[in-house]
């Protein structure tokens, strides 16, 4: 007999072993008599820890259900794939702006009845956070951790250039003037420090228009991104590139691309003196540069009737369609949505709570010195939210592209926004028509 008579069975055995391993790796965990609720979250690091703590508390509070939390990257895409693949988690921690798209696709369950039974109601929540979860009169998600944004500024740098650190800018004009003072440009045109960085962190490029009084759509069927207010906002955005040079700014920006959560974050290093940031910024300052002398204030207003502009940013919990244990999943949601649960979670993540009622302990124990400001901002009249449109992911991609065209000065603000409007209008028409056909409008 030749050698191959021996090698081939050996190879076959090795392949079979690998096959076995591959199947084991993707198998679900063994049965321990409890109902296992699979929970996917986007968070990592300490934000994840805070939620894990709540999950542990819930698991301890009863002995029938066990929630298994798992950190998942790209959760907004992966959850859809899992739902369509028929293996969704029982609870998914999506981003607030995803809810409409998921509701349109019927990828998440309506929670109205269960919430009514459990006594979870709109009156208890700060309105915009609850409303972000309501699509066409049905509730599809519940807020988990909410946030507002404010101007963060470097007090030491204010002092350095002779500005009063207790008087942050109140209007856009003041902001521009102070930014000029704080900006340092080297002789060769290199930017060394920016006073205000409109591209940092670049997470809410859509919000600048609404900060200037613009609307993203009229609520009926028209894209209004090229309205005069929005154009004004984008003209302001471009003014920085005009002043300091588009390519100088972009290569400056490139140096700390993807470094938000690192000591190289330009706000921590003092490379930018002012930027818009959320309530969580405190944690990162604490972690990467606790000595930083900083302050937070309402973002400057574009006009007197637009005081205290802020972004309503939130994470939500929902129950995907096809979840194996929706009832048990809702038990967990109920636990999280109690005042105790939400405060435990939001204090752990050092954000604000979505509930109107705030315990004294929450504010007392909250380490962020500006927590009251962030809570107050949630009630601001110029609090802006993402539009509840199923085509939002594409719309926001388009706005981001226009934003980058404007900052790189490849288009004028009007051109860039007209392009977005021309592109999105037919998509919105089609979207509205589809809703009409399905009788969901």
């Amino acid at each position, binding site marked *: 007999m*030749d050698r191959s008579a021996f090698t081939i069975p050996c190879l076959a055995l090795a392949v079979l072993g690998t096959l076995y391993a591959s199947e084991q790796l993707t198998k679900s965990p063994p049965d321990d008599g409890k109902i296992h609720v699979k929970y996917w979250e986007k968070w990592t690091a300490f934000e994840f820890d805070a939620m894990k703590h709540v999950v542990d508390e819930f698991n301890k509070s009863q002995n029938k259900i066990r929630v298994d939390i798992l950190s998942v990257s790209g959760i907004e895409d992966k959850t859809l794939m899992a739902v369509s693949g028929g293996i969704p988690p029982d609870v998914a921690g999506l981003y607030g702006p995803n809810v409409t798209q998921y509701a349109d696709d019927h990828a998440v369950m309506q929670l109205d009845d269960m919430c009514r039974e459990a006594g979870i109601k709109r009156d208890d929540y700060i309105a915009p956070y609850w409303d972000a979860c309501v699509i066409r009169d049905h509730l599809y998600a519940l807020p988990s951790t909410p946030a507002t944004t404010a101007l963060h500024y470097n007090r030491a740098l204010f002092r350095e250039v002779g500005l009063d650190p207790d008087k942050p800018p109140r209007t856009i004009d003041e902001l521009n003037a102070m930014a000029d003072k704080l900006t340092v440009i080297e002789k060769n045109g290199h930017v060394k420090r920016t006073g205000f960085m409109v591209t940092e962190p670049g997470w809410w490029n859509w919000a600048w228009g609404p900060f200037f009084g613009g609307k993203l759509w009229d609520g009926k069927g028209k894209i209004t991104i090229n309205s005069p207010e929005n154009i004004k906002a984008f003209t302001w955005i471009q003014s920085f590139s005009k002043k300091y040079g588009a390519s100088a700014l972009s290569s400056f920006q490139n140096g700390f691309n993807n470094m938000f959560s690192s000591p190289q974050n330009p706000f921590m290093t003092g490379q930018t003196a002012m930027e818009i940031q959320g309530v969580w910024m405190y944690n990162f300052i604490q972690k990467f540069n606790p000595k930083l002398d900083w302050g937070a204030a309402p973002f400057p207003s574009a006009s007197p009737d637009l005081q205290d502009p802020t972004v309503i940013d939130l994470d939500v919990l929902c129950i995907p369609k096809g979840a194996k244990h929706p009832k048990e999943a809702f038990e967990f949601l109920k636990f999280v949505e109690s005042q105790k649960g939400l405060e435990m979670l939001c204090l752990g993540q050092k954000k604000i709570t979505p509930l109107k009622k705030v315990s004294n302990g929450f504010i007392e124990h909250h380490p962020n010195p500006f927590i009251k400001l962030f809570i107050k901002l949630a009630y601001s009249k110029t609090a802006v939210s993402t539009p509840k449109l199923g085509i939002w992911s594409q719309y926001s991609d388009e706005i981001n592209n226009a934003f980058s065209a404007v900052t790189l000065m490849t288009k004028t603000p009007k051109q860039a926004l007209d392009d977005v409007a021309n592109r999105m209008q037919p998509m919105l028409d089609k979207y509205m028509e589809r809703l009409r056909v399905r009788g969901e409008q």
Partner: protein
Amino acid sequence: MKSQQQAVTVQKVLVQVALVVLSIAFLFPFAWLVLTALKPLNETMSMPIRWLPSKFMWGNFKDAAIYGHESLGYYPFLVYAVNTVIVCILIVAGTVASNSVVAYAFARLRWPGRDLAFGITLATMMVPFPVLMVPTFALFRHLDWIGTYRPLWVPAWFGSAFSIFLLRQFFRTIPFELTEAAKIDGASEWRIFRTIVLPLSKAALAVVALFSFMGAWNDFLGPLIYLLDQKTFTLSLGLQFYQSQNGGTSWNLLMAASSMVIAPVIILFFFTQRLFIQGIAITGLKG
């Protein structure tokens, strides 16, 4: 005659110089990768660029292999490496096994419709993956295979045009007299395939294995669509997960993991490259 010899020497020196210069260009980013793997974290991103680490952190390699925090969704790179190897083994085994059998049918057996089938097979090389992406996803969804490795490796067991083509061309170069003799002795086709054709085709099989390995190794879109759970990720996907987070990434560990993973492959290639080139040369890629 002397001047001609001189010309040859000059030419050789020039070639040698070109090879060295190009080697540096091709090795440079790789060297950068290894150097980054040896740096302490705060030096990985320092400006201006630091070429050499202030201290060689050999421990990074160990950390990259075992550091992890399961509940946080961080798995050691070793886990991703093992996953990738598992998928690669299944794909390579399937590719070699299925395509050699199929190519045998196309190369050395006669059956009605063979040439038409071969023409269609060649045409499928032109089908881009994105065309198949949506319906294939729908198909695997119906089979409940989303979130498992099956969508990645099962298709490999059913042949692929490129490998069939390669092996067919090779099998045709084996003299028919060899197999005819066995046939007259009453050997079955399977026996001829196993005992005569396969043992003569090691180089070609190695080429097919190499190309399918490279494909599986670098595949990103497939795992991106089909794998859901962090702990099942392949290296490409795991690495992407780390770099897509907003900073806080342990670049040094990431690069340590990358270099550990490619080191064995590089060594393997070094010792087998002659075989591959021979394999390709004998197969019919020349047309």
